[in-house]
């Protein structure tokens, strides 16, 4: 989850910067020299909950952690693992031990030197049963963590763990400030001290969080002097603030991107980017229901859904049809899986073959006296899912399947419907991370109440693949495992994978040096700059 947020901070696979948004030649990138100074204003819908990463699990907090803290490792612009606080690392031949060699030139924001003791302390914090953290699971698999010398940190696992390496991207916490007393009551909860490119300045509750460039950052002082997160709970207000110059960076909705920002005035002030986001939306069938036990039925319904129509209607074209659980273009993605082109005639034929036919002429199919009718549930507050549901409802009706759509408040939705498996089908989305481990969502052992395989998917081969996948470290061997896994999912259609939306950030044009890459635009944030004569804020 933590990794997920790190990535959300700035994950971008650039399929094409919006051509309309290319800056006019006179203030094009690279012409003016970088300069220090100016402030970047970002909007945040929610107030951060907790600025100690070990305790937080919301995206507003994680955005700030990303600038204040460093992990031992991080993803580079192409989503390859690279050293952060660790300048090098090695994995033992038996794949059980990872040794990190840490940088010697890093200091905490209060001037104390960073050492391996901090890394060890962070690990202990993560596995401490007294610490209410959501991240403990992965670190419990470490059997030994040790500090052979002040700049070496070594962890040993009982079994090889493929996601072990990326788990050390978790922000490192300062031992000297946290070892005394209860971490949940530490002042660092509201005033963090990290090693990152930005130092915490102030947090005015309900209003803003202010960060300032760290002049001693080990990679050099960031150009942009200050970063202000303004807490603006309403998306419409946020958009008005953006247009008014009160924000410099914001993620747009498809509607804002296509219809509301296509004006010369907006284009003069902002550059828009679009690239696939790290998530996918799906229609999941409850496989415990007799209706969906029949593979022919699931496949027929897959042929009845027009994914391109969903992309066009729901995302206004800003997305791509999904074929599986991985992001198109990422290393684990397998493009050669069975696809289900939109073909209502085929869908009707397949339903006939499966024994569902409309014998009483009311337009809805029946089999053994049972009508083919079911309910799709989804959560309140996500218009895109509701719209997708409505479009799917119509398409299913056309092949003789009656669908009701029910929208439920989030907590009740999980508690009453998803967790107990009390639903026919649901439209939901998963956030994806670069590591393809999908054990928790697809393994047959995860079908219990409140677990993530709530559709009840059980497949012996998938179980084996998922177990091997998380124990295999070699990239090409792993790819073979997950390629096969994607083939089976595509064959079995426990979900109809609907679409991968795009992230749609708009950034004020005075910021230069933005270089979109597979990992996003934020990865080189410390190299963004505003040329001297365009700087807006002096202090």
């Amino acid at each position, binding site marked *: *989850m933590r990794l997920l947020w790190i990535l959300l901070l700035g994950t971008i696979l650039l399929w094409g910067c919006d051509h309309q948004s290319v800056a006019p030649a006179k203030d094009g990138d690279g012409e003016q020299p970088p300069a220090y100074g100016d402030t970047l204003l970002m909007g945040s819908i929610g107030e951060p909950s907790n600025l100690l990463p070990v305790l937080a699990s919301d995206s507003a907090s994680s955005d700030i952690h990303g600038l204040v803290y460093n992990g031992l490792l991080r993803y580079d612009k192409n989503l390859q693992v690279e050293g952060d606080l660790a300048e090098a690392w090695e994995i033992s031949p038996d794949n059980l031990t990872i040794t990190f060699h840490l940088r010697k030139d890093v200091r905490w924001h209060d001037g104390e030197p960073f050492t391996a003791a901090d890394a060890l302390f962070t690990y202990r914090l993560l596995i401490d049963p007294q610490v209410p953290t*959501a991240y403990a699971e992965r670190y419990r698999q470490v059997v030994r963590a040790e500090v052979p010398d002040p700049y070496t940190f070594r962890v040993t696992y009982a079994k090889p763990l493929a996601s072990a390496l990326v788990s050390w991207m978790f922000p490192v916490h300062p031992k000297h400030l946290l070892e005394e007393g209860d971490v949940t009551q530490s002042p660092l909860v509201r005033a963090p001290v990290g090693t990152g490119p930005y130092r915490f300045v102030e947090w005015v509750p309900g*209003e803003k969080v202010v960060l300032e460039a760290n002049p001693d950052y080990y990679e050099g002082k960031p150009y942009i002097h200050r970063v202000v997160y303004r807490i*603006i709970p309403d998306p419409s207000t946020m958009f008005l603030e953006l247009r008014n110059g009160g924000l410099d960076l914001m993620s747009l909705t498809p509607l804002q991107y296509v219809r509301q920002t296509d004006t010369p005035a907006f284009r003069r002030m902002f550059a828009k980017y679009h690239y696939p986001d790290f998530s996918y939306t799906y229609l999941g069938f409850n496989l415990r229901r007799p209706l969906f036990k029949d593979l022919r039925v699931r496949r027929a319904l897959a042929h009845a859904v027009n994914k391109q129509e969903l992309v066009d209607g729901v995302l206004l074209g800003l997305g791509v049809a999904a074929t599986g659980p991985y992001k198109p273009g990422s290393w684990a993605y397998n493009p050669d899986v069975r696809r289900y082109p939109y073909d209502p005639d085929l869908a009707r034929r397949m339903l006939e073959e499966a024994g569902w036919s409309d014998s009483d002429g009311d337009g809805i199919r029946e089999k053994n006296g049972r009508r083919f009718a079911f309910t799709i549930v989804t959560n309140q507050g996500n218009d895109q899912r509701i719209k997708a549901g409505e479009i799917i409802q119509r398409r299913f009706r056309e092949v003789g399947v009656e669908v009701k759509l029910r929208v439920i408040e989030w907590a009740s939705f999980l*508690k009453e419907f998803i967790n107990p498996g009390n639903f026919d089908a649901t439209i939901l989305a998963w956030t994806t991370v670069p590591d393809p481990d999908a054990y928790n969502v697809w393994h047959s052992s995860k079908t219990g109440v409140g677990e993530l395989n709530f559709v009840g998917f059980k497949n012996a081969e998938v179980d084996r693949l998922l177990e091997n996948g998380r124990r295999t470290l070699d990239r090409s061997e792993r790819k073979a495992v997950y390629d096969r896994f994607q083939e089976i999912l595509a064959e079995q259609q426990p979900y109809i994978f609907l679409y991968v939306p795009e992230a749609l950030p708009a950034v004020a044009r005075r910021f230069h040096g933005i270089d979109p890459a597979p990992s996003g635009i934020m990865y080189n944030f410390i190299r963004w700059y505003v040329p001297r004569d365009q700087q807006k804020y002096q202090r």
Partner: protein
Amino acid sequence: MLVHIAKRLLLMVPLLLGITLISFVVIHLAPGEPTDLQTQLNPDASAELRERLRAQYDLDKPLLVQYGKWLGRLAHLDFGKSFVQDRRPVAEKIAERLPVTIMINVLSIGLILLVSVPLGIVSAVRRNSLFDRFTTVFVFLGFATPSFWLALLLMDFLGVRLGLFPIAGLKSLGHEYLSFGRQIADVLHHLILPVFVSAFGGLAGFSRYMRGNMLEVIRQDYILTARAKGLSERAVIYRHALRNALLPVITILGLSVPGLIGGSVIFETIFAIPGMGKLFYDGVMMRDYPLIMGVLVIGAVLTLLGNLIADVAYAAADPRIRRG
């Protein structure tokens, strides 16, 4: 009188207990728990973690035990610590939000009174005139206009297009570098739109109420007497009628005391104002039980006190009630 007040205060205790018990049970009946945000649909969260978190919050204990513990803390005037991830004392969180909310609500009630009392009087005195009809339409338009819609329109037109007002928040960026006078001007500038929007919807109720009272009073015999004495119409209306027509306003003001801390989720969200409404709403959404209970208790106490104060003030203002 003092005995009466003391009796009323004593009676408030069981009432308050009842209110808290019912609130406590009802909010726990709603599906979802404070730990959900961390554990639901999170691939990293195990069942064991869920249990551990629940135990940390005492959520694994029977409801009545939880209530008892909460009540015990409340007896020491301790609202407990928030269940959301910042774990801050509830009292601190509320104290942080209260001043802004009270300020906006006082300003807005002030504005409502300032506008609706004269509106009501004039409408009553010139009943069925063009003015009366126009105000009726106007105030009901205000009543019927969704505040979020009005707010967004004003922000777009006056803020983005004309640039007259800031869009959201209470302070400009760089507020802390301004002189003290400028700081106040800055906050006032930011307050104009939110106060206007929150007052606009309230005009209808109050001005109609004022009009109704005034009409009632004007029909009384003593007004007829005053007129018969040959007093000027001005003196009749403003000295004799208005004073009596204002009496019920005391009740309304008493009832609006809890509203002072209530705030409104809608306009606080739209204007990005960190007030009580948003705090409470977020608390409910995250099932932050101590926070919800804290706000409810304060609200309940203020409601009861407001009623009491209104009764006392009414008695002080109106000799008929005092003697009766």
